[in-house]
């Protein structure tokens, strides 16, 4: 059975084609074509949308909306969301970043999906027919309603310096994640943490929130003593993956080390 590429001008037209058995959405190709090259014979057709609306980055009223077809290179180059550049640059090398899309990264299985970790910390909304919070989307991403297509993600811009991101890999400058961490920390003028959202990559089969650590941070400060309680519960609810990069045991051991560095430096 051969492979057919089907191109559509609009999301609505593509929806029907995507509902057919063996259809898979084609973004930048770094996941879908890779699967085909690897011998995934369940893929019979690749469906893509050429609507330029999906390639737009819009900034207004303190919010950003990034189209699903926007590439990592375009995110990294946009001064309006410069804080996200380190997360976009964490994905692949230059060629992959010229191809890999924001929409595709939402579906990237561990150890990939570093950008989705950043979006989870930002509590982004995923636009797929209707808006869905990122955390809920990730729980159900394998079972999206037939034919529904992610068109954009949107999020409130964090305050200056409020967003933190760290990807841990053994190979520099480009390596697969041991783990990645993103956090949005809002602090009062006196340094008291008002709110905290922490997202972890490679600590489960999808990016997950470290809710226990978040709760432990609120009302505290970013000092050695202030974050100790959060580090102690950082691994709560995690089920790290084991792969050729690292074992689940190793990931669990080093998570508090890297969370400490993320929070203090």
């Amino acid at each position, binding site marked *: 059975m051969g492979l057919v590429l089907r191109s559509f001008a609009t999301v609505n037209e593509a929806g029907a084609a995507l509902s057919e058995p063996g259809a898979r959405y*084609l973004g930048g190709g770094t996941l879908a074509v890779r699967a085909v*090259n690897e011998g995934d014979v369940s893929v019979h057709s690749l469906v893509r949308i050429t609507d330029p609306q999906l390639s737009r980055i819009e900034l207004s009223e303190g919010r950003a909306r990034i189209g699903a077809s926007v590439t990592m290179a375009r995110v990294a180059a946009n001064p309006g969301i410069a804080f996200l550049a380190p997360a976009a640059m964490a994905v692949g*090398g*230059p060629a*992959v970043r010229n191809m890999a899309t924001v929409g595709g990264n939402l579906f990237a299985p561990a150890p990939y999906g570093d950008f989705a970790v950043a979006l989870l910390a930002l509590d982004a909304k995923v636009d797929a027919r209707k808006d869905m919070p990122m955390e809920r989307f990730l729980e159900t991403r394998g079972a999206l309603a037939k034919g529904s297509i992610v068109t954009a993600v949107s999020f409130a811009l964090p305050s200056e310096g409020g967003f933190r991101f760290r990807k841990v890999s053994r190979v520099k400058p480009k390596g697969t994640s041991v783990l990645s961490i993103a956090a949005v920390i809002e602090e009062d003028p006196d340094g008291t943490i008002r709110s905290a959202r922490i997202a972890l990559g490679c600590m489960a089969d999808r990016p997950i929130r470290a809710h226990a650590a978040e709760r432990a941070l609120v009302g505290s400060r970013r000092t050695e003593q202030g974050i100790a309680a959060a580090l102690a519960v950082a691994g709560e609810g995690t089920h790290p993956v084991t792969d050729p990069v690292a074992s689940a045991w190793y990931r669990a051991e080093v998570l508090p080390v890297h969370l400490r560095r993320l929070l203090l430096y």
Partner: protein
Amino acid sequence: MPKVPVQFALNGEEKAEFVESGTSLLTLLRDKIGDTSPKGGCHQGTCGACSVIIDGELKLSCLVLAETCGNASVQTTGGLAADGVLHPLQRAFLDHFAAQCGFCTPGMIMAAKALLDRNPDPTREDVVEAISGNICRCTGYEPIIQAVMAAAQGNSQRVA
């Protein structure tokens, strides 16, 4: 299987081909057109050996479907030498022993070209970042980095 027409410019030369739907650009270039400069390494987007420049952007031709390249401008290392004269990057790779087995070289050169087209005066860090998606198992990367730096400085002569 239905054949799909695709028209694009390869190294400045117009090409019009019929491809089977789902054919990668790498397969079209190598098996049909005969430009074997891009190599098929991993077919997974991991090794960079198939790197080409499409409309000014470095991409992996093993993961690009040929039929999405309509009206595009595709550059490969195969088109760099003009009238028997090597491109400065090719010259610098030779002078600095930046190739041993040579399998990664055309991809490395395309990655380096994508950098120099955008940033003619790169730092060493810029070069390292630019080739970070290209794997070389022979050289240990150092001669490649030196070759790209030398090409950027317009000095492809080997340092004694």
